[in-house]
């Protein structure tokens, strides 16, 4: 047998096995993480990271700076930032702005996506989903896979039920995740308009956050702030102003813009004092 053929066959079998495992998962076998763990060991987490990056590259229409080009300072993908409010100023890689190191690099830039673009057409975002699903299969404990996928499913693709199901999968694998609970709360609040469930889930998220993060020297205050803001907005929308003020007051302590939050509190207090 030719030497390269076994390599090809191994790759083929690996891909086939991957495909089968996805089907298996759909058939109801939830803990495929253990199957991947069996096949790949701990390296599956590294694969999951790569697959997650692949989804981000898809979000950028194939454009993605390699590890040799630059490393993002905070280690977050652009796609994940998008879900938190994407900062467009951190890209300066359009061809006109980019400096090529030599003529070969300039010539080579014609043959791969060398321009920073986002998926613009409505529905294009669906293309990132297979990689997020695979990332979750490889490493079910990677929380942002679920939150990012759910965001795109419900925000850009109107697939609220699929988003909820995926978040619930994530919750089963990560029962203590306040990030997934927050995303689930947003879904109930913004898409399903199911206030009691949204409130319950968001309050549970707060509880989980306090249990896991409060004692840490550098707690994830950004996430805490997001949950509180969501809860406060929910209470404000339903007319439960004292409770909204209560959440805003807690938010003020961790917000990077406490003055703005204070202003909102005062507005609500004024509204509350009106007969």
């Amino acid at each position, binding site marked *: 047998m*030719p*030497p*390269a*053929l076994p*390599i*090809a*066959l191994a*790759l*083929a079998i690996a*891909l*086939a096995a991957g*495909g*089968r495992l*996805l*089907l298996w998962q*759909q058939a109801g076998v939830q803990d495929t993480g253990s199957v991947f763990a069996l096949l790949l060991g701990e390296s599956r987490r590294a694969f999951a990271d790569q697959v997650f990056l692949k989804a981000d590259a*898809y979000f950028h*229409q*194939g454009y993605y700076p*390699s590890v*040799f*080009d630059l490393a993002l300072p905070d280690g977050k993908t652009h796609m994940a930032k998008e879900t938190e409010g994407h900062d467009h100023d951190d890209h300066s890689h359009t061809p006109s702005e980019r400096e090529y*190191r*030599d003529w*070969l*690099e300039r*010539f*080579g830039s*014609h*043959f*791969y*996506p060398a321009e920073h673009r986002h998926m613009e057409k409505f*529905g294009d975002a*669906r*293309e990132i*989903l*297979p*990689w997020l*699903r695979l990332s979750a299969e490889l490493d079910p404990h990677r929380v942002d896979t679920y939150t990012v996928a759910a965001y795109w*499913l419900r925000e850009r*693709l109107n*697939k609220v039920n*699929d988003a909820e199901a*995926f978040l619930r999968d994530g919750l089963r694998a990560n029962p203590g995740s306040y990030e997934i609970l927050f995303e689930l709360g947003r879904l109930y609040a913004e898409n399903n308009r199911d206030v009691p469930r949204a409130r319950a889930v968001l309050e549970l998220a707060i509880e989980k956050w306090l249990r896991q993060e409060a004692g840490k020297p550098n707690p994830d205050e950004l996430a805490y702030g997001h949950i509180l803001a969501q809860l406060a907005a929910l209470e404000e929308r339903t007319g439960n102003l004292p409770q909204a003020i209560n959440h805003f007051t807690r938010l003020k302590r961790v917000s990077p813009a406490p003055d703005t939050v204070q202003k909102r509190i005062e507005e609500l207090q004024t509204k509350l004092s009106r007969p």
Partner: protein
Amino acid sequence: MNTVWALANVVVLEMVRRKDFYVLFILTVLLTGTAGSVNLFNDRSIVRYLKEICLLLIWVSGLVIAITCTARQIPAEREHRTIFPLLAKPVTRAQFLLGKFLGCWLATGLALALFYLFFGLVSASREHSWPVANYLQAGWLHWMMLGIVIAFTLLGSIVFAAPSSNGTICFVCSAGMLLLGRHLNKVALSLAEPLQSLLYGLYFVLPHLELFDVRDLIIHNWELIPWGVVALATLYAAAYAAFFLFAAWLIFRRRALN
């Protein structure tokens, strides 16, 4: 030229009649089909991952076909002793090498045509579009890249006696260049002298196979590459293929056959 064509024709016939190509094609079809049958969030219009998997399989298959087909040519001629009646005819060593190169390159081109046709069908089945010019560019550049690989493998088959070692070396070198070629200059810049100059020199000397890999442009429906750039890339490939063939001829022309 008739002699070169006659030699090339036999190589093409060999590929058509051997099972390697069919196995790889069927594997590609089966794996792409399996990947396509996966239900992802109940959305049947997701296509890019499928294009990516299909193109990856095509690229792996292309390399396997090109390298294995080329690596066995000269060793098989010697092992089966067919090289003796052949070179006992008015065939120069240069014609022999050119015929083998052309045959392997044409055979690989035929295989690529079929693979890309399949890719087009897979893509069209979900995207309902047929960007022929883009596919032509991708297939053409892929074929040009394999021209360099084939010439390199032919040179290897004269240097290394065993087709298996030659095949493995060529596969590793090609895959290494495809994965790292684009970044060699950046790695060089991170090194101290004299390693920096050495690696940067290598960066310019080594054939940049990754230039011909336009899979990401095809997967994400980017615009066409300017045809002038494609023409330059073709010249680039031709120059490297010619260089490797010339080196092969230099070694082979005086080699005693016994």
